[in-house]
C-alpha cells in the first residue's frame, strides 16, 4: 500500500480535504466520483501539478510529495491524451523513453513489446495528428509506461471512445498492466471501468474520500 496523508488544497470555495488515503501498490485503484467532486484535483496534486503544503505520500518508503513532478517517476495519461501532434506515434513514445534516460536499444525493445500488447503495429509510423481516438489513447498509454514508471495515472482515459472500442481498450489495458505489473490509479466516473478494472475502489465527493472498497 502507498499512503497519502494531509492532502488539503483550497480552490476558491472548493476544499479538497483528504487526511488519509491508501492506494494499492499493485493492481488498479479506482478513484470514482461525480463531476466536480475533486477527482482531477487529486490527480493533479499527486502528480505534482498542484501545490499542497503539508502533504505526504509514502510509496515504498519514499515520500513522493517532496519530489518535483519529473522526479516522482510517474506515467501519466491525461483525459485530453495530449499527444505531441508534430510527431509520429513512435516518436511520441520514444520521447518519453529519452526523457527517462532509457538507452535507445532498450527503448526500441520495450516499444516493440508494448506495441505488440496494445496492437499498435499498423499505426506506429503515422503522425499523431491523424490518429483515431482509440489509436491516440493507446499511444498515450504506451508513452506513459515505456519509462517504467513507479505508478501509472490515468484520468478518464476511455471517455472519448465509443462503447465497443471502450470495452476492447479496457481488455487490452488490463492485460498490459497485469503483464507489466505497474500499480495504477484510474480516475473515472464510468461504472464499466470500475467493474472491469478496479481492484480497489475509492469514492470521492465534495473533495473528501467517502468510501473505500
Amino acid at each position, binding site marked *: 500500500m502507498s499512503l497519502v496523508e494531509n492532502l488539503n488544497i483550497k480552490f476558491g470555495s472548493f476544499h479538497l480535504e483528504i487526511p488519509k488515503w491508501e492506494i494499492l501498490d499493485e493492481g488498479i485503484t479506482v478513484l470514482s466520483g461525480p463531476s466536480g467532486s475533486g477527482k482531477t484535483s487529486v490527480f493533479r496534486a499527486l502528480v505534482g501539478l498542484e501545490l499542497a503544503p503539508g502533504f505526504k505520500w509514502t510509496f515504498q518508503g519514499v515520500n513522493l510529495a517532496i519530489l518535483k513532478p*519529473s522526479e516522482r517517476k510517474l506515467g501519466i495519461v491525461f483525459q485530453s491524451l*495530449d499527444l505531441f501532434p508534430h*510527431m509520429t506515434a513512435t516518436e511520441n513514445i520514444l*520521447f*518519453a523513453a529519452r*526523457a*527517462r534516460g532509457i538507452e535507445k536499444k532498450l527503448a526500441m525493445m520495450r516499444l516493440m513489446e508494448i506495441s505488440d500488447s496494445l496492437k499498435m503495429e499498423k499505426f506506429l509510423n503515422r503522425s499523431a495528428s491523424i490518429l483515431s481516438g482509440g489509436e491516440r489513447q493507446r499511444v498515450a498509454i504506451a508513452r*506513459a509506461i515505456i519509462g517504467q514508471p513507479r505508478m501509472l495515472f490515468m484520468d478518464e482515459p476511455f471517455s472519448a471512445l465509443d462503447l465497443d472500442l471502450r470495452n476492447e481498450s479496457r481488455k487490452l489495458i488490463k492485460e498490459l498492466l497485469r503483464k507489466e505489473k505497474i500499480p495504477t490509479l484510474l480516475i473515472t466516473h464510468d461504472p464499466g471501468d470500475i467493474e472491469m478494472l478496479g481492484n480497489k475502489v475509492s469514492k470521492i465527493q465534495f473533495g473528501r474520500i467517502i468510501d473505500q472498497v
Partner: protein
Amino acid sequence: MDRYSQEYSKLKMTTALLQKKYNLYFSMQEILRLVVFLFLISPFILLLTQFKIHGLPEFGDFFWALRNSFVQSLLSAFFSIIIGFWFGLGLIALPKVRWPKLRNVFEILCLLPNFLPPIFTLLSALNIIDPFPMGVFGIVLIHSIMNFGLVAVLTAGIIEKKAGSVIELAFVEGATRLHFLYRGLLPMIYKDIWSIGLFVFIICFQSFSIPLIVGGGRGTTLEVLIYEKIRLSGEWSGAVFLSIVQSIFIFLISLSLRNTNKSTEIKKSNLQLVQSPLALVFIFAFFVLYFVGYLDGILSGIQMVSTFYEYQSGILWSFLGSLAIGLTVGSASFLGLMAIAFSWPKKWFTQFLRGYLGPSTSLACFAFLILGPNGGLFSFLKISAVITLLSLCNLFRLGWLSEMNNLDSQIEVATTMGASPRQIFREITFPQIFERAGILSGIASVWACGDFAVSRILANQDLSLGMMTETLMSSYRLSQASILSLLIIIVGLMCYLFCVGGSRVLGRKFKY
C-alpha cells in the same frame, strides 16, 4: 596544465563553492527568463539610476497632453471598433471553410495598414486628403485607418468561433438581423469587443510616430511631450516622471484585458443572418483608395525621379542602413521569442509578459541614448536594440502568447514525464513554433526597415530609408517620399524573407 586552464579550474571551483554556500543554483531557463525580463524593463532601470525625480513637473502641460492622448486614443478605438465590427461582418460573408484563399486575401488586405510601417499609411492619407487635418483629428484618422482592419479580422474570428451555431439557430427560427445583432450577438461577444477596444486604445495611447508627424502643435500627446521635454528642454527628470505615470496608466488599463484563449477550431456554420456582403465591397473600395493614394504619390514622384540624382549616394547608404537594422531586429526578435519559449511557462514571467506593454517609445530611446557612446555603429546597434525591445512586447500580444498557450498542456505532459527543459524545447516547443517565430520576427524586421521615429531620436543624421522618407515628407515632398518608400518595401521584403527562410533552415537543421 597551462596557466589559463589552472585559472579556469580555480574559477570553476570558487563558483561551485559560492553556489553551495549561498544556494545559488540557476538553471539556463531561470537565467534566460531574467535576461528577457531585464532587457524589457531596461529603459526604466537605466533612467531611474541616472535621474532622480526632483519635485513634480508642470501639471498644465501634463494634463493637456494627457487629455490629448486620452481623447485621440478613445476616438481612435471607438471608430476602429465601429468600422472594424462592420467590416468583420463583411469578412464572415467569405467563410474560411468555403473560400479559404479569398478570405485570406481579404484578411491580409485588412491587416496590411497595421503590419506595414506607419509611413505607408501616412503617405497614402497625406496624398489623398489635402489639406490634411493636423492635430487630434488627424491622429484619430490615421490610427483608425491603421486599426479597423485588425479589429475586423479579430471580430470575424470571434463571431465564427463563438456564435456560429447560435446564429444558425436564430436564422432557422426566423430572427431578424437587427434584432439578433442587438439582442443575441452583441451581448454574447461584448466582452471580447471591449477587450479588442482596450487593446486598440493602448496601442494608440502609446503611439509616437503618428502624433509626431500629424499631431502638429495642437495635438501634442504624452509621448510627444516626453520627447519634447528631453529633446528641446533637456528636462530628463520630468520626462522620466511622465513616462512612469504613462506606464502605470497603461498597466492599469492592461489589467482589464482578457487573456488570449487557446485557439479553437472554426466549425462550418451558415452566418447569413449577420453577414454583410456590402461591407465586403466597402473593404475592397477602401483598399483601392489606400493603394490609389499611395500609387498617386509614386506616379507624381516618377516625374521627379531626376531630382534623386543629388541623393543617390545617400540612398545607397540608407538602403544598406535599413537592411542592417532590419536584419538585426529580425534576428534579435527571433532570438527573443525563442528565449521566451525556452523559459515558458513560469507564473510570474507569464503574468509579467501578459501585463507589460512595453515602455514608451521616447523613453526607451532616451534611455539607450544616454547609455554609452553614440554615433556610427553604436547608433545602428541602439536603434536595433530599441526596436527589438518595443517589437517583442507587441509580437508577444500579436501571436506569441496564443502560440505558447497552445503548447502549455504538451509542456506540462512532457515535464511530468521527466523531460528536461532542453529536451522539451528541442523536441516539443521549437518544432512547433519556429515557423511562427520566423513570420513574427519578419514582421518586426519590416517595422524596423520603415522606422523613422526611434531612429530620429537615436541618430543625428539620416541612417535609413525610413528616416530619409520622413525628412522628405516633413518638407512636403510627398511624391519623392512615396518613390523612396518603394525601396522600403523592397528592403522590408528582403528582411522578411530572410527571417522566414532562416527560421525554416533552422527548423530543418535542428530536427531532432
